[in-house]
C-alpha cells in the first residue's frame, strides 16, 4: 500500500516536473517570438509614421494647387457655382408631380 502510494506519487511528480519544463520552454519560445514581433511592429509603426508624414507633404494644398494649375483644366470655385439642389429643374418637376 505504502509502496504503491510512493510510486504513484513519484510518477505524478515526474509528469508534473516534465510538463512544467515543457511549459517553461514554450513560454521562452513565445517570449522570443513576442520580442521579434514587437520589434517588427515598432519598425512598421515607424514606416507608417514616415508614410503619413509623406502623405501629408504630398497632399499639402500648395503642392496640389501647383499640380492642378499645370495638369488640370480646373479653376477656383466661384460662389455662383454653388446652389440649392432643390432649384435644379429636375427636382422642381419632381416636387410638382408629388404635389399633384
Amino acid at each position: 500500500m505504502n509502496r504503491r502510494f510512493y510510486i504513484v506519487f513519484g510518477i505524478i511528480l515526474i509528469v508534473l516536473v516534465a510538463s512544467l519544463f515543457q511549459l517553461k520552454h514554450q513560454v521562452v519560445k513565445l517570449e522570443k517570438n513576442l520580442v521579434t514581433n514587437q520589434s517588427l511592429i515598432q519598425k512598421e509603426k515607424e514606416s507608417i509614421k514616415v508614410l503619413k508624414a509623406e502623405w501629408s507633404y504630398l497632399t499639402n494644398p500648395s503642392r496640389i494647387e501647383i499640380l492642378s494649375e499645370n495638369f488640370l483644366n480646373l479653376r477656383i470655385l466661384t460662389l455662383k457655382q454653388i446652389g440649392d439642389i432643390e432649384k435644379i429643374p429636375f427636382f422642381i418637376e419632381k416636387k410638382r408631380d408629388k404635389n399633384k
Partner: protein
Amino acid sequence: MKKNIIENINKDNEKNLIDLSQVRLVVIFGIFSILFITLFIRSIDLILLNDKSFNSFSSNNSNIDKKNRSDIFDRSNVLLATNVKSASIYANPKEIIDKIEASSKLASVLNHQNSFDIQKKLTSGKPFVWIKRQVSPKEHFQVNKLGIPGIKFKQEVKRVFPQQSLFAHVVGSVGIDNQGLSGLEKKLNQRLLKSNKSVLLTVDTRVQHALRRELNLSMKKFDAIGAAGIIMDVDNGEIIGLVSLPDFNPNIKIKPSDDEAFSRATLGSYEMGSTFKPFTVAAALQNKIITMKDGYDATKPLKVSRFIIRDDHPKERWLSVPEIFKYSSNIGMAQMAKDLGVDKQKELLEKLGILDRSKVELSEVGKPLIPKNWREINSITISYGHGIAVSLLQVAKAYAILVNGGKKITPTLLLNDNNFIPDENFYNERVISEDTSKKIRGLLRLTVKSGTAKKADRLGYEIGGKTGTAEKPSRGGYQKDSIITSFVGVFPMDMPRYVIAIMLDEPKGIKETHFYRSAGWTAAPTVGNIIERVGPLLDVMPNKTKNYWKNFEATYISVKSNE
C-alpha cells in the same frame, strides 16, 4: 575463552566500522542534500521567479516612443507635425587618416556644408565631433557609400512639418535637440513632451492655405513688407486660420530671420485706425448715449486742445450715426467719444479683451500698448483707433463678441480642450446686448454695401466689416509714407459665423487702385477674395436670406433721402 575475546574484539571492530561508515554516510548525505537543495532552490528561482530578463527585453522598444514629442493634427486630422527617425553623422577624427580628403569628400555629398568647415572640425583634436545632424536619407546613403573610416552614424529623432511653412506661426518650430523654439511647440513644450496623446488643433489646412495664398497675392500686388490674417469662429473663439507673412519653413530654417520669425498676427501691436470705431459706437449704443437716429455735425474739422481732427472722406455736413460709421468720420466719432466719457469707453474695451494680453496658446503674444493716463484726449483718439496699439488677434476677438450677440469668447487653438473650464456665468454674461449686437452688424454690413469697404462685397454672401488705415508711428509723430491698412470682415451677416481680420504692412498704391493705398482699396478686396474662397470650405451656403438686411435698412437708414 580466547575465542570469546577474539569475538569481542571482532565485535568491537565491527561496531566501530559500522559507526564509522554511518558517520561517513551521514556526512556524504549531508553534503549531497545541501547541493541538491541548492540546485532545487536555484531551479525554482530560474523557473518561477527570475524572469526579469524577458520583460526588460520586450519593454525596451516602447521607451523610444515615450521620449518623443506628440504629433500635431489639424481639425480634420491632417498631420502638421510628427517625428521620424533620422541619422546624424559624427566623426572620431583620430581614426581618420587623410582628413583633408575626407572633408572634401563629405562636403561633396552633404548639402549646405563646405569642406573648410568640416576640415576645421576634424582637426580640432576632440575625440567626438558632429559633422551634420539629422541628414536626409539620401545624404545618409551617400556618406555610407563613401566608406570613410572614423565617420559614424547615430540614430536620432527628427521633428518634421509636412505642411512646410503653412503653419510656421501656429505650430512653430523645434530645435535640433527637440526643444520647442516658437509657436505652439514652445508654449506647450512640456505637454507635448510628457503626454503621449496627439494634439488636435482648431485650424483647418485648406482654409489656412486659402488665407495664406490670398494674403501673399495681395502682399505682392501692393508691394507690402508684411501681412497677417486671422479667421475665427465667432461663437466659440476657435481659430480656423492664422497667417503671418513673411514666414519660414521650420523643416529647413531652425533660426529664421527676425522678420520671418515675427508674428504680425499675434505678437505685433499696431495702431489699427478706424477699425476701432465699432467699439466706441457699441459702447455709446449700449449705454444709450446715442440712438441710431442721432448724429453729429461734421461740417468742419474739430479742434480738441492742440489737435485738429479731420475726416479722410469729408462730407462737410451733419451726419447720422450710420453715416458716421459708413463714411468713417473721425469728427463724428470724436464727438461721440466726448459724450460717452472715458470710463464707459474703457469698461467696454476691457470687456472685449482689448486691454489685456491675449491668452491664446502661442509663445508669441504681444502686450497691447495703452495710455498710462487715460484722459479725454486719449479717449477721443482711441475712438478712431489712434493712441492705442493692439494685436490683430485682439481685434478679431473683439469683433467676434460684437457680432455674436455679445457672448464672451476665448480665442483658442486647441480643439476640444478640457483645460479651459469657464465658470457658470461665463456664457450667460453678455458684454453687449443682443440688440446692440444686431445694430453693429447692420452698421458693418452698411459699410460694405455702400461705405468705405465696397470692394469687399461679393455676390453670394452677406459680408460686413470695417476698414482701418493708420500711419505707422515713428519717434515723436507719424510716418506719412508708411501705413498699415486693416479690414475686419464678418460673414454671413444675417447669422455671423466667422470673423476675418487682416492687415497689410506698408502697402503701396498701384495703377489699378488709382494709386490709392487706403484699406478700402487694399485690405477690403483681399478679405472679399478670402471669403469667396473659404466660405464654401467652411460650409456656409451662399445666396441665403437677406430679410435681415431689409429690416435693418427700413428701421434705421431712413435718412437716406437727405443725401
